[in-house]
């Protein structure tokens, strides 16, 4: 059955919920990355390690912000 025969409201709602779910999982994943980077930085200590750690925290913050932003947009 062609996709354009689906009821428009249901289709959009499903896509909205899927996207939000992806973003929520992404935010959880970003928080796990922060923990992973912390572990990595303790295992190998270099001048770059604090920078990478900072990037991972910013990345996690952004991903959480995007969940809120997308909730607002959608």
């Amino acid at each position: 059955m062609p996709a354009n025969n689906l009821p428009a409201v249901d289709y959009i709602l499903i896509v909205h919920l899927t996207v939000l779910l992806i973003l929520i999982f992404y935010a959880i994943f970003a928080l796990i990355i922060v923990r992973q980077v912390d572990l990595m930085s303790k295992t190998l200590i270099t001048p770059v390690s604090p920078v990478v750690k900072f990037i991972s925290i910013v990345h996690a913050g952004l991903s959480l912000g995007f969940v809120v932003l997308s909730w607002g947009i959608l």
Partner: protein
Amino acid sequence: MLSSYLENPTNCFFEGQDHDENILLLLRAHPVTNLSWIIPSLLLFLLPYFWPFIVEMLNIQFPPIPQNLVNVLILVNYLIVLVVTFEGFLHWYFNVYILTNKKIVDIDFHSLMFKNVDLAPLSQIQEANSQMAGLLGIIFHYGDVFIQTAGAKVAIDFHQVPNPHKVADKIMDEVLRVGGKGAG
């Protein structure tokens, strides 16, 4: 600091390093091996630009999508690019092989939840072999180093490191220096 072949790095340390232990060699996979995540990231990054042409070329009919949903889908695409790039870099940067004046250390982070550290004292090392294989390996001069130890664990392998023959030679020089049994 972002090199894949560092001799006597002064500002690098690893977990469990002794006070009288010096890093002689710090190795990572050759930068060329990063193409395995750089190319997919680049394609994903460019996908939103080429998407209209792809849809038109394949003649796919989509129902009308609201602009706000399109914006969020583009955002999701760039988040995926971000995480693929960041994870690729982390995997490359923190998976290191270290030769010190006391031992060999192989630090592996296979996935988000798996950390593996192999240690082998130089006195336990019996031999080191190197090999270069594949077109990229020959062109960019990288390959694997296989280190045989006398312990229960059979071997420590350095994968896709630059100058594998030089690395194997340096390891054996160090083994001979400490007078490891079976060396040479």
